[in-house]
C-alpha cells in the first residue's frame, strides 16, 4: 500500500501537450479512476506513473519516494493493459510466474504464489494453457493474476474491461472492486466509460486535453460539476446547458420534470418547451425538445421515469420545470462553476 503523487507533471510530444501540469494525490488504498475522452492524456499519465514514459517536467512520487527517473521495475508497481499483453509463448503458469522470476524468487515459493494468485481469480485449471487457448474473460483474469502475484504497492489498470462483452464487463467490474477492497492496494484505473468510473471509483479525476477538470467522489462530479466540460461529459444524456447574459445555467435531464410532478409549494424555475422527439427506453422516457420564450431557444432533454405517466407527444408544448436548488450556474466565458447561493 502506498500513496501516489504527481507534482505539476507535464508530457509534451512533438508539438502537442498530452499531459499539462497535473497535480494529483492518490490516497493509500484508494481506488482512483482517471476518466476522460480518448486523447485526453489519461493513458499517458498512467504510463508516466508506470515509468513507461518519462515526464517532460514534474515529478512522480510513489510511497513518498521520488521515482521520476527510475525504470518501471524499480517502482514496485503492476500494470494491466487494455490488450492484457499476456506473453503468447508462455503458459498461464509461466505468465503469472514471470514477475516472480524477475525478482529471483525460489522455485517452490513461486509455485505457491502462482497458485495463490490463480485461486484468487478462479483460474487454477487453466495454468497449463497458452493465452491463445483462453477466452477474453479468462485472459483478463490471467492478466490480473499476473499483476497481483508480486503484491505490488500500486496497481495501474489501463481500460482492462473494454475488450469484454457488456454482460461479462458488469460481472468483471464487480469482481475487480471486490478484490481491490480485499487487498486494499492503491489502484489507479483509466477508462473513458463513465459508468465504469462512477461504479468503481472512490474518487474520479476528470481529464480533458491534458488538464484535470475535477477531482472528486462520483457523487461530487455528477451532482456538482466544476465546469461545463464535466457537466456534459458525465451523465447520459448530458446536463442541459442554457446560456443567457454570460451565464450558463445547467440542470440534469432527470431534474427537468412536468410542473405537476413537484409539490405546489416547491420553489421551481418554469421552463416551458416544445417536444421534438420522444424515446421510450422502457424504464424511462427521453423527451427531446426546444425551450420556449422567455427562455433562450435551446435544445433540452428531459428524462421521465416510468412512474411519471404524463402523455407527451412530439409537437406539443409542455410546462416543465426544475427545482431552483437543482440549478447550476457556470461562467459564460470560462465555463467554470459560479459559487451559487447556499442551499
Amino acid at each position, binding site marked *: 500500500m502506498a500513496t501516489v503523487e504527481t507534482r505539476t507533471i507535464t508530457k509534451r510530444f512533438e508539438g502537442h501537450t498530452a499531459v499539462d501540469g497535473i497535480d494529483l494525490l492518490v490516497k493509500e488504498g484508494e481506488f482512483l479512476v482517471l476518466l476522460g475522452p480518448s486523447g485526453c492524456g489519461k493513458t499517458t499519465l498512467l*504510463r508516466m506513473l*508506470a*515509468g*513507461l514514459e518519462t515526464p517532460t517536467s514534474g515529478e512522480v512520487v510513489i510511497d513518498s519516494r521520488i521515482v521520476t527517473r527510475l*525504470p*518501471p*521495475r524499480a517502482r514496485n*508497481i*503492476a*500494470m494491466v*493493459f*487494455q*490488450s492484457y*499483453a*499476456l*506473453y*503468447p*509463448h508462455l503458459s498461464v503458469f509461466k505468465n503469472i510466474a*514471470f*514477475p516472480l*522470476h*524477475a*525478482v529471483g524468487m525460489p522455485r517452490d515459493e513461486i509455485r505457491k504464489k502462482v497458485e495463490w494468485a490463480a485461486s484468487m481469480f478462479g483460474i487454477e485449471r487453466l495454468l497449463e494453457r*497458452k493465452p491463445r487457448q483462453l477466452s477474453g474473460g479468462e485472459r483478463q483474469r490471467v492478466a490480473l493474476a*499476473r499483476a497481483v502475484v*508480486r503484491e505490488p504497492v500500486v496497481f*495501474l489498470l489501463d481500460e482492462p474491461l473494454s475488450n469484454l462483452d457488456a454482460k461479462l464487463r458488469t460481472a468483471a467490474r464487480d469482481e475487480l472492486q471486490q478484490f481491490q477492497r480485499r487487498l486494499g492496494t492503491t489502484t489507479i484505473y483509466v477508462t473513458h466509460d463513465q459508468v465504469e468510473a462512477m461504479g468503481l471509483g472512490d474518487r474520479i479525476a476528470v481529464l480533458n486535453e491534458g488538464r484535470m477538470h475535477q477531482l472528486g467522489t462520483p457523487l461530487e462530479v455528477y451532482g456538482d460539476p466544476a465546469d461545463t466540460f464535466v457537466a456534459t461529459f458525465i451523465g447520459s444524456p448530458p446536463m442541459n446547458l442554457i446560456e443567457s447574459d454570460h451565464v450558463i445555467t445547467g440542470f440534469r435531464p432527470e431534474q427537468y420534470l412536468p410542473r405537476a410532478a413537484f409539490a405546489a409549494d416547491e420553489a421551481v424555475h418554469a421552463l416551458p418547451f416544445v417536444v421534438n422527439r420522444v424515446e421510450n427506453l422502457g424504464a424511462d422516457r427521453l423527451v427531446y425538445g426546444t425551450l420556449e420564450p422567455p427562455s433562450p431557444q435551446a435544445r433540452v432533454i428531459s428524462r421521465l421515469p416510468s412512474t411519471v405517466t404524463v402523455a407527451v407527444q412530439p409537437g406539443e408544448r409542455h410546462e416543465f420545470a426544475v427545482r431552483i436548488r437543482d440549478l447550476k450556474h457556470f461562467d459564460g466565458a470560462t465555463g467554470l462553476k459560479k459559487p451559487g447561493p447556499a442551499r
Partner: protein
Amino acid sequence: MTAAGGAAPRVPGWLHDEQRLGTLLLAPAIVYIAALVGFPFLLAVFYSVSDATVGSRGLNFVGLRNFREIFDDPVFWRSLQNAVVFTVASQLLVLVLGKMLAMALYKDFRGKWLVRFLILLPWVAPISLGSIGWLWILDPVYSIINWLLQALRVIGPTDRLIWLGQPELAMLSVIAVNVWRLLPLATVIILAGLSSIPQDIHDAAAVDGAGFWRHLFQITIPLVMPIMLVALLFGIVFTFTDMIVIYVLTRGGPYDTTQVLASYAFFTGIMGGDLATGAAISLFLFPLLVAAAILFLTVARRAEVA
C-alpha cells in the same frame, strides 16, 4: 466503334472464364519454372546416372557408378565438410549480427534511414561486384586490412597476411564476405519479426521487472524465433547452393580448403568437362536441403502454434 468516353474497354468473352484466365495468368510462372528449374533438374538426374562428358556425343547409362566414384573422392568429402563449416559458421554469425542490427534499427534515432540504406547496400549491389571489391580488400600486396594492422602495430611492418592464400585465413575470409552479403536480408526479416511484437508486450515485461537480458532471452527472442528460423532457412539454402563468393575470391583454393560442393560440382562438371560426375555432386545437395527445409518449416510452424 463508339467514342471511348466512359465506355468500359471491351474484353473478349473467354477472358471472363475464371478457369481459363487463371491458367493464362499462371502460365508464365509455370513455363519459367519448368524450363529453368524443372528441366535442368531432370537433366542433372539423367546425367548423374550416365557417362556424359563435354567431349563426346555418346551417352550411356552407368547406374550409380558416378556416385560410387565421388564417394571415393577425398576432395568430395573435403568439399562437403567445407560446405558445412562455411554454412554453419556464416549462418551463426548472420543470425547473431542480424538480431543485433535489427534491434538497433528498431529503435528510433537520427539518421536511421541512412543506416538502413547502408545496411541494405550489400544486398542490392551485384554480388560479383561486391566480391571483386573484397578481392581488392583481401589482396596479398595491397590489402587495406594488412595496412591497417601494420599501422596499428598488430603485425610487424614487413609481415603480410595472405588472406586468400593461407588455408585458415581463406576460410575466414570467404565466411566474412558471405556474412557481409547475407546480413542485410536476415536483418530485414528479423526486423519485420520484431515489428510484429505488440509494444504492450514489451511494456508488460518492463513493468514485470525484466531487465535487458531477461527481456531479450525470454520475451523477444522466443517471439521472433519462428521468423528467425525462416531467415536461417533462407541463409542455409543460399549458402549451400551458391558458389559466387568462393568462385570470385578463392576458386576453392588453396588446396581445396575452401572448396564447397557447389563450386566443386562446377569445377568438375563445367570446367573439367565431366558432366556426369558434376551432376552427381550437385545432386548430392538436393536431399540434404530438402531435409533441412522440412525440418525448419516444421519447427517454425510448431513455434507459431505453441
